[in-house]
Each structure stands twice: as C-alpha cells, then as structure tokens.
C-alpha cells in the first residue's frame, strides 16, 4: 500500500492552521463590525467621497450626484461583505487543501512550497476586498479596483491557483502511476 492509499490524513503545520483560523476570525470580526458600525462606515465613506468630488465625477447637481454616491456606497458595502465571505471560505479552503498537500506530496521542498502558496494566497486574497472598499472614497471605484487587483487579487489569487493546479497535477500523477 502506498502512502497515498494509506487511510490517514496528515495535519498541515500549525502555522498554517493558525493563519486559517485567523482568517476565519477576521471574517467574523469584519462581518460583526459591518453590522455594528454600518452607519459610521457609510458616513465615513460618503464624507470621503464628498471631499473629493473630482475623483468621483460629482457635478454638484443632486439629481446626478445622488446616483454616483449611491453606486459607490453600494460597492463599498459589497467590498466589506465580500471580504467577510471570502475570508470565511478561504480559511476553510486553506485547511482542506493544505491537508491534502501535506498528505499526498512526498517531497519536502515541493510540499512546503505548495503549502506556503496555498496559505499565503488563501489568506491574502480576501484582503483585496477590504483594500478595495477602503480605497473607494479616496480613489474612486475603478482606480481602487485596479489597485486592489494588482496589489492583492492578482498575486495572491495566482498563488492559490498555481498551488491548486500543482496539487491536482501531483494527485493525477500518483493516480496514473498506481
């Protein structure tokens, strides 16, 4: 019986579990704060947007600006919600995928690299939504999205996807060999 076929799971390193749990805790704290400080957060975002009319393309006519502000506030709120959901979900994904990696990858270096990618990618990606939301009042919808994409979503998302494909490849290779 090979190691893969052995009916045992290997628990990933403790730091990985700690990161995953912290991600879930951050999600819960974020979700709770969203509800508790909804008015304050909305006021802060609205004040930030009104302080930078040119960034948001405000024209000084309420009938026009109202919709621009409304859309930005909806997206600001969506960013916080998406952070909450992704941080919660990615915490579980980190635990599940690193457990598979710890179990099926024999080579130490490869296993460590894939676990590191899965953990950093999984924990970092949700922060992109928080960054996006936080930047909306200062940089506007599109520019803040671009910043979050290149600073967080693309590097951390790519890390997760690359690591997952590697893991898929390893498992497939083991299947073919056996």
């Amino acid at each position, binding site marked *: 019986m090979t190691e893969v076929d052995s009916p045992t*799971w290997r628990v990933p390193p403790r730091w990985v579990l700690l990161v995953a749990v912290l991600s879930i805790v951050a999600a819960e704290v974020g979700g709770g704060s969203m509800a508790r400080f909804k008015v304050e957060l909305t006021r802060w975002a609205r004040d930030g947007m009104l302080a930078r009319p040119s960034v948001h393309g405000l*024209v000084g006519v309420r009938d026009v600006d*109202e919709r621009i502000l*409304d859309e930005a506030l909806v*997206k600001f709120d969506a960013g916080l919600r998406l952070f909450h959901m992704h941080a919660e979900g990615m915490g579980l994904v980190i635990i599940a*995928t690193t457990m598979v990696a710890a179990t099926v990858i024999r080579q130490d270096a490869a296993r460590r690299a894939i676990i590191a990618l899965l953990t950093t990618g999984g924990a970092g990606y949700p922060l992109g939504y928080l960054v996006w939301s936080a930047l909306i009042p200062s940089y506007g919808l599109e520019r803040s999205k671009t910043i979050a994409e290149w600073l967080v979503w693309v590097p951390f998302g790519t890390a*997760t*996807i690359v690591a*997952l494909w590697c893991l898929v490849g390893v498992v497939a290779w083991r299947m073919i060999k056996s």
Partner: protein
Amino acid sequence: MRGNGRAEPAGFLLRPPLVLAVLTALVTITSPAAAHHVGSYVPGDNAVTTNFKQVKFSVQAKKYDVALRLFDSGALRAEMHAHAATLPPGLEDGTRAALTAGDGPEVERRLMIFFAALSRDLALEADRQIARPEATVETRVATGRKFLEAIWRYYNLVDFAVATRDNTTSVAVRLAFDEAETYVKPAAGGAAAPDPAGIREPLQRIARALSTLIDASSPSSTTPRRNS
C-alpha cells in the same frame, strides 16, 4: 500517525479520484484570477421618482385620498417647493387642488409639467457644465453621460403623458436624446470618438422642446397641442 499530524481512519476520503475531483472543482471555481467578483449595482428609484409612482398608481386606482396623503408627506411636493422658482406659478397648489378634487387627468398633466421642468433644468445645467473650457474632454464626456442618465430617469416617467398631449415634443426629445447619447458613448468598432462639444446642440434642443411643452401646458394654458 505520521509527521506533525494526527492520524485518523478516513480511507474512502483519501481515494485519489475523489481528492482529484474535489481539487479540480476548487481550482476551476477559483479561475481565472483576474475575474474578481466585485458585486453589481442596479440603480434604484430616488425619493422623488418613488413618490411619483406612489401618487400615480394611487390616482390610477382612483384612491385620491391616499394619493393626496402621499403627495403631502412625500418628496414630490418638497421638490416642487424647492424648484418653485423655475416652475410655472401655482403648480404645487394646483396639483394638490386636483388631487383634492379627484381630477386624475389634471394631476397627470401637472406632474408631467413638473418632470418636464426638472429634465429641462438638467439639460440646461448639462449644457453649461459641458461648455466649460477648463474641463478635459474625458471629464466633459463623463459629465454629459451622467446628466443624460439623470434627464432620462425623470423624462422617462412622463414620456407617455407627453406623447398623448404633444407627440411632436415627445419625438423631438427622444431624437435629441438618442443623438446626445451617440456623442458620449465610448468609441468601439470604428465608431467616432466621444465628442463633448457635439452633445451641446441636442441638449439645447431638449431644453427648448421641454420649455415649449411647459409653456403650452402650464396651468394658464388650456389648449393642449396634439399632433397626430
């Protein structure tokens, strides 16, 4: 037990095909990295358009007492009050009187005048802002696009009422609106680049057509202009 982990009997979960299927599903739903879900925005009604619809549907159902209550306490009346300087005199009081008297067509006519006036004022303000020489082309195009959205949001509510009273104005406004939109649309597939200067003429046409409509339909005027 191996390494730093705790061993548990879970044979069937460790079957490579199952693990592979789960991992493939995971990697498929997380790809591609660039397609980040950032939520969508569906524009809703504002306080004025919401109150207009409430009053309109109450009038259509002949619930004039409900319509009057909604008008008295809603944003429509407050907005009429705020725009009194640019509206035909007595529009607010006349609307209230029509609601009290249960005169549905008169309520509709006065609300049509109100929204036509709001649209006209927005068209005039858009023309003024787009004419500013210090603004960049992109800013003027974006400004034009936003004003057109706001104009249509209001005019669209009363276009049917306008068309039934003065279809020439209705067609003129819609044609001018369509033309104005072509100047602020992003260039694609060989189309002409957005032209903020070009939008001014159709905006002025919208303002003129609506001014004529307001003058012809204002409370002092009693003969609606119907062209068919």
